[in-house]
C-alpha cells in the first residue's frame, strides 16, 4: 500500500517535470533568440544554441535538464545571465523559513482552537470562531496582509511593514521582521485546519466507546483529549500537511506584499520579464514540494489507520 503510493508519487513527479519542460517547448522561438534579441543573425543564434545545447533533440535535452537539476544546476537566467542556482539558493532558504515560521504558529493554534470549539460545541464561542473562520477563508491574502500592516505597522508601529531580511540578519531580528508575513499566512490557513480538527473530533463523539467514557463519569475535557483525539489524528494530520502544501503556494502573494526576498517574489518578477528558465526552475521547486507534501499526507493517513495499513 505504502510502496504503491510512493511509486505513484514518483511517477507524478516525473510527469510534472515533463509538463514543465514540454510547456516551454511549445514557445515560439527559443532561449537563444530571446537572449540575443531581435538583431541577432542566424549564425550567432546557431552558435549560442550549440553552446546551450539547444540543437539536441527534445528528449536528450530533457534528460540533460533533469540531470543538471538533480546535481543542483538549473541553467542560466535569460534576464541577467546569472546561474539560476545562485539566484535561488538564498531565496529558497528564506521562503522555507517563512513557511516554517507560519506553520509553527498556526498548527498549535489551529489544534487548540479546534479542540476548544469541539469541547464547547454550539456555544457562542464555537459559533463566533466558525463565522470568523468562514470569513478568513474568503478573504484575499493581500487584504489580510494590508489590514495587518495598517494596524500593527502603521497605527501602532509594533512591527515593520517591509520584511527586508539579508543573509546576515541575526535570527531573532529575522523572526521579528517576518512576524507580519507569517501572521498573514497563519490567519489564512488556521481556519481550514481548525474546522477540520473540530469536525474530526465531533465525528467521533457519536461512537459507542465515547458514550462509554461519558457514562463512566469522565470529564468532558478528558473524554475529548484522551479518548477522541487519538483516533482523530489521521484526518487532522492529513489536513495539516495539505495546509502546509497550501502555505508553500500562498507564500507567493504574501512575499510580494511584504517585499520579502523569497522564491515567490522571484517567480513573479521572472514571469513579468518572461525569464523562462527561472520560472521553470521555481515552478519545479514549488510543484515538487507540493507533490511531496501531498504524498506525505497520503502516506501518513495510511500509516495512522490500521485498516488501511493491513488491507484484507
Amino acid at each position, binding site marked *: 500500500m505504502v510502496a504503491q503510493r510512493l511509486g505513484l508519487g514518483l511517477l507524478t513527479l516525473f510527469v510534472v517535470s515533463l509538463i514543465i519542460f514540454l510547456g516551454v517547448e511549445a514557445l515560439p522561438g527559443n532561449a537563444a533568440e530571446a537572449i540575443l534579441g531581435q538583431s541577432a543573425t542566424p549564425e550567432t543564434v546557431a552558435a549560442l544554441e550549440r553552446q546551450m545545447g539547444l540543437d539536441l533533440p527534445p528528449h536528450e535535452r530533457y534528460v540533460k535538464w533533469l540531470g543538471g537539476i538533480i546535481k543542483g544546476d538549473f541553467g542560466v537566467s535569460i534576464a541577467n545571465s546569472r546561474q539560476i542556482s545562485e539566484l535561488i539558493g538564498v531565496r529558497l532558504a528564506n521562503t522555507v523559513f517563512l513557511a516554517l515560521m507560519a506553520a509553527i504558529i498556526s498548527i498549535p493554534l489551529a489544534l487548540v482552537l479546534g479542540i476548544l470549539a469541539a469541547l464547547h460545541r454550539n456555544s457562542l464561542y464555537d459559533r463566533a470562531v466558525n463565522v470568523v473562520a468562514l470569513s478568513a477563508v474568503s478573504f484575499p491574502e493581500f487584504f489580510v496582509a*494590508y489590514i495587518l500592516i495598517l494596524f500593527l505597522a502603521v497605527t501602532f508601529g509594533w512591527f515593520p511593514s517591509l520584511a527586508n531580511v539579508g543573509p546576515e540578519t541575526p535570527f531573532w531580528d529575522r523572526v521579528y521582521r517576518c512576524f507580519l508575513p507569517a501572521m498573514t499566512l497563519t490567519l489564512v490557513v488556521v481556519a481550514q485546519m481548525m474546522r477540520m480538527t473540530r469536525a474530526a473530533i465531533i465525528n467521533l463523539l457519536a461512537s459507542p466507546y465515547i458514550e462509554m467514557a461519558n457514562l463512566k463519569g469522565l470529564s468532558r475535557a478528558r473524554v475529548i483529549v484522551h479518548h477522541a483525539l487519538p483516533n482523530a489524528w489521521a484526518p487532522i494530520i492529513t489536513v495539516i500537511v495539505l495546509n502546509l502544501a497550501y502555505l508553500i503556494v500562498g507564500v507567493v*502573494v504574501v512575499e510580494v506584499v511584504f517585499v520579502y526576498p523569497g522564491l515567490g517574489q522571484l517567480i513573479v518578477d521572472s514571469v513579468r520579464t518572461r525569464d523562462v528558465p527561472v520560472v521553470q526552475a521555481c515552478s519545479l521547486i514549488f510543484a515538487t514540494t507540493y507533490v511531496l507534501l501531498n504524498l506525505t499526507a497520503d502516506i501518513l493517513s495510511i500509516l495512522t489507520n490500521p485498516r488501511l495499513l493491513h488491507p484484507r
Partner: protein
Amino acid sequence: MTDQNSTVGQSADAVAPPPPRDRNWADAWRELKRAPLSAKFGLLVILVYVFVAFFAPVLTPYGESEVVGPAYDVWSDARPLGTDNLGRDMLTRLLFGARNTVGIAFVTTVLAFLIGGIGGIIAATLGGWMDQLLSRVVDILMAIPQLIFALLLLTIFGTSISNLVIIIAVLDSTRVFRLARAVSLNVVVMDFVEAARLRGERIGWITLREILPNILPPLAAEFGLRFCFVFLTISALSFLGLGIQPPTADWGSMVRDNATLITYGDITPLLPAGAIALLTVGVNFVVDWFLHKTSGLKDEH
C-alpha cells in the same frame, strides 16, 4: 444523497407536464423568506454587485480611465474616495471594477463549468478508456499547485485577458470535472438511464436530458464556491501585476497601484480589497445555505 437523487430523477423523467411557473416562484419566495440572516445578507450583496456591474457608467460622472485631478488626492465632495496613483477617480474605478473583475471571473467560471462539467458527465457515462484518459489527465493537472501552474502558463502564452480566462478556466475545470464525474456516477447506474440507453437514445440526449437535471443542485453549489476561488485567483494574479492589465479598472491591480497609501495610514487602497472580500463572503453565505437546503454535501475548500 442517493435517496434524493432517485426522487429528483423520477420527477424529472416523468411524462407529466412541469408545474406551472408561478408556483415555482411562490415556492422560491417562501424559501427565501425563511432563509437565515446570513444568506439574505449574501443575496443582497450579490444583487448590489450585479446592479453596479450593469449600471457603472450611469452611476458616475467620470470615465473609467479619465484623469480628473492630481494623483493621490484626498477624499472630497466632488471625488468621494479621492484619486488613485494616476489621478483617476477612485470611486469610478471601484464601480467599473465590479463590471470588469466580477465579469471576467464569472465568464471564467462558466467556461470552467462547461469544460469540466461536460468532461465529467461524459467520463461517467462512457466509462472505460475515456474515463481513464480524462481522469488521469485531470490527476496530472491537479498535481501542480494552481497558482504556480497559472504563472508558468502565463509566462509561456503571455499576459492578456483572453489567455488569463482560458488558463484559469482550464485549470479550474479539473475540480468541476471531479465533482461532475462523482455525482454523475451515482445517477448513471439508475434504471431510468438504463431505460434511455435501451431505447437507443444518443449520448448527447442521455447527458443533457437524463443526467444533467439530476446533478444540477450539487453543481450549482459548486458553481458558487468555484466562482469565489476563481475570483480570488484572478484578483491575486492582478495584484501581482500578471492578471487584468491597465488601464482596465480592476480591484486586484487597484490595490497594487495604490498600496503605498497604506503606509501613511490611508485606508483607500483597502476598499477594492474589501470589495473582493465582501463578495466572496456573500457568495459563501448563500452557498452555505443552499448546501444546507439541497443535500448533505460538504464544501472542500
